[in-house]
C-alpha cells in the first residue's frame, strides 16, 4: 500500500451538498475526500467520506474508539479510509455526538447513543452513495459499537481492531489509569470504589485529562462483545499488542463466533508500545511498520471479501 503519496492533489471547490463542506480530490490515489456535518437531529455528526472517483463497489463505516485511544488511532483510521477508497470502497468515518467536531454534550453520551450514531452514519452512507453492500470496522470500544450496528445490516463483514471484549474489565482499566495518574501527580491513593463513588456523585472523573462520564460508565459496564456479535458473518479480528500470541479473551471470542457460524480470520500485529501509551518519540503513522501491516491486512481482507462475495447489506 502506498500511504505516502499525497502529491497531485486538487481542490474541487465547495462540496456538492453544501458550501460548508470540504472537498478534495487526490489524483495519485484517485479518490475524493469530503468532510461535512450530517444527521437528522439537532446535534449533527461530523463525517468524512473517502470515496473512489468512480462508482464504489461497497461501503465501509468506521467506528472509532474513545478518549486517549481515539487520539492514538485517529490517523490510522484516516489512512485506512483513503486506502480503502483507492481500492474502490466508499468509507465513512464519523465523530460520535458529544465528541470531536460533532455537536452534542459529552456528558450525555452512552453506548446506545454511540450505536445510534453508527447507524445514522451507515444509513447516510447507503443513501448518499447508493451502495448495495456494506461492512463495518471498529476499533477498541468502537468494536462494541460496530458489532451491534452490524446486526442491522444482513451479511455485513466486520473488522475488529483490538476490540474491547468485556465492558466491566475496560472500565476497571480506565479507573486504574486514574489511580496511576493520581499516584504519580499527587501521591493520593484512593481506592477504586472511592473513584467510582466520585464518578456517581460528580457525574464524571478526570482520566488523564479526559472527562469520563457517568452516563457512559453506566451504559457500558455490562456490555460484552460476544453478546452483540452478529451470527454467520465474515469477521477479521486483529490484535494490536506487545504479545506474540493471541490473548485468551480473543481465542475464546473466535471460538464462540465460529460456533455461531461466522467465518473468522485472525491476525496478531505486534506493536512497539501498548495501546494506551502515547510514545514520547514522534513517528508518523505512515512510517510505522505496525501501522502499514495493520492497514494492509485490513484493506486486503475487505477488498478481497467484497471482490469475491456477492452478498451484503
Amino acid at each position, binding site marked *: 500500500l502506498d500511504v505516502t503519496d*499525497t502529491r497531485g492533489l486538487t481542490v474541487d471547490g465547495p462540496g456538492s451538498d453544501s*458550501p460548508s463542506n470540504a472537498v478534495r480530490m487526490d489524483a495519485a490515489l484517485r479518490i475524493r475526500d469530503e468532510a461535512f456535518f450530517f444527521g437528522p437531529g439537532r446535534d449533527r455528526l461530523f463525517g468524512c467520506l473517502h470515496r473512489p472517483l468512480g462508482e464504489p463497489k461497497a461501503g465501509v463505516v468506521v467506528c472509532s474508539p474513545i478518549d486517549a485511544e481515539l487520539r492514538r488511532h485517529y490517523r490510522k483510521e484516516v489512512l485506512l479510509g483513503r486506502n480503502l477508497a483507492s481500492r474502490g470502497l466508499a468509507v465513512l468515518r464519523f465523530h460520535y455526538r458529544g465528541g470531536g467536531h460533532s455537536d452534542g454534550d459529552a456528558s450525555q453520551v452512552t453506548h446506545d447513543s454511540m450505536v445510534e450514531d453508527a447507524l445514522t452514519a451507515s444509513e447516510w452512507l447507503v443513501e448518499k452513495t447508493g451502495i448495495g453492500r456494506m461492512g463495518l470496522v471498529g476499533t477498541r470500544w468502537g468494536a462494541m459499537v460496530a458489532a451491534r450496528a452490524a446486526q442491522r445490516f444482513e451479511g455485513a463483514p466486520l473488522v475488529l481492531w483490538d476490540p474491547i471484549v468485556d465492558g466491566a474489565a475496560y472500565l476497571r482499566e480506565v479507573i486504574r489509569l486514574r489511580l496511576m495518574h493520581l499516584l504519580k501527580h499527587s501521591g493520593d491513593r484512593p481506592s477504586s470504589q472511592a473513584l467510582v463513588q466520585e464518578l456517581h456523585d460528580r457525574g464524571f472523573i478526570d482520566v488523564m*485529562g479526559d472527562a469520563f462520564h457517568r452516563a457512559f460508565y453506566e451504559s457500558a459496564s455490562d456490555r460484552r462483545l460476544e453478546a452483540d456479535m452478529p451470527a454467520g458473518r465474515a469477521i477479521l479480528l486483529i490484535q494490536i499488542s506487545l504479545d506474540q500470541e493471541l490473548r485468551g479473551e480473543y481465542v475464546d471470542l473466535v471460538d464462540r463466533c465460529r460456533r455461531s457460524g461466522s467465518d473468522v480470520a485472525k491476525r496478531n500485529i505486534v506493536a512497539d508500545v501498548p495501546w494506551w501509551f502515547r510514545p514520547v518519540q514522534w513517528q508518523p503513522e505512515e512510517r510505522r511498520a505496525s501501522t502499514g501491516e495493520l492497514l494492509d491486512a485490513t484493506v486486503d481482507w475487505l477488498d478481497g471479501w467484497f471482490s469475491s462475495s456477492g452478498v451484503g447489506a
Partner: protein
Amino acid sequence: VTGPAAVSGDETLAYIPAGDDFVFGVLSYPTVQPVGCAVVHLPAGGAASSGHTRETVTLSRSLAGLGYHSMRLDYHGVADSTGIAEVFRLDQPFLTDVNGVLKWIDGMGIDRFALVGMCFGARTALAAAAQEPHVGLAVLTSPPVRDFEMGAAGGWATSTAVEVRGWQLTKRTLRVETMRNLFDRKKRRRYVRIAKAKLGLVSGGMRKRKPDSWVSSAFLREMSALVERHVPTLFIYGAEDKFWREFELARQGRLGRLLTAAGDLVEVVSIPGSIHDGRSLITQERTRELITEWLSRHRTDLPKGSESRSAVGLQLD
C-alpha cells in the same frame, strides 16, 4: 456583547492548500456582530484539532460568541490533513501551514488575526506572529523557551541540566544512592547524558558570555519582534510544568529584560497544576477561561495588523 457558542451549523469545513499538502480546518463563524478578527488555533505537535477532550472545539465555538471568526486546524500529516509530518522541531515551526490558513481566511475579507497556540503550536504562533504584520494578538500556552525536537533522546537531559545548578548536581552525584545506581547500565547512561548536557550548557554559556545561551535565539528574536510591533501577548503556563520552570529561569536573563521593556503589553500567567506534562480537566478549563477572558478584553482595542507602529528600540544583547 456575548452571544451563544457556535454549533456545527455555524461552521465551514475546508481543505486548505499549504505547500504540497492540504491542511484540514474548521471555521466557526461569529454568532454576534463580528469583530473582524479571526482567531487561529494551533495545536500541540501531533495533536488533532478535534482535540484532547475537545478543548479546542469548545474554545473555538465559544469565541464565536465573542464575535471572532475562529479557525481550528490539523497540521499537515496530522488527523484529517494530507502529507506526512516527519518531525516536530521547535526551531522548525509549521509556518507553511499557518500561512496557507491565513491566506485562505484573508480571501474571505478578514485580515486581522489572533494566534492561539499550545506548546509546539505556541512556538509556531510566535514565529508566525513575528513575521506576519496582520497578526494583532498572540496567546502562547506552554511555549518551550528552548529549541528541541519533540521526543528526541536527550531532551529531558538538557531540561534537567538547565534546572539543576552545578553545585546541586555535584551534591546529587555524591549521594550513596547515585553511586549505587552507577552499577545499573540504564541509569549510568542517564547520568552521563545529564552530565554531558550540563557541561555543554556551562561551556557554551562561558564561550558566548551568556549564562542563558540555552534559551532559543529564535524565541527571543520573535518575541522581540512582537514587542516592537506592540502585539499584545498572553503567556499561560502550568505551575507544575517543566516549561514554566525553564521560562522562569530564562526570565533571569535577556527574556526578563525584554518582558520588562514590554510592560503591560505582555501578560504572563501561571495557573496551579499542569497544562502540559499531566493535563487535567481543571487546568484545561482554567486555560480556556483565561484565553476567553483575555480575548474578550482585547476585542475592543484590536490593533490593525497592517498599521505601522513605532518600535520601542529593544536591544536584546
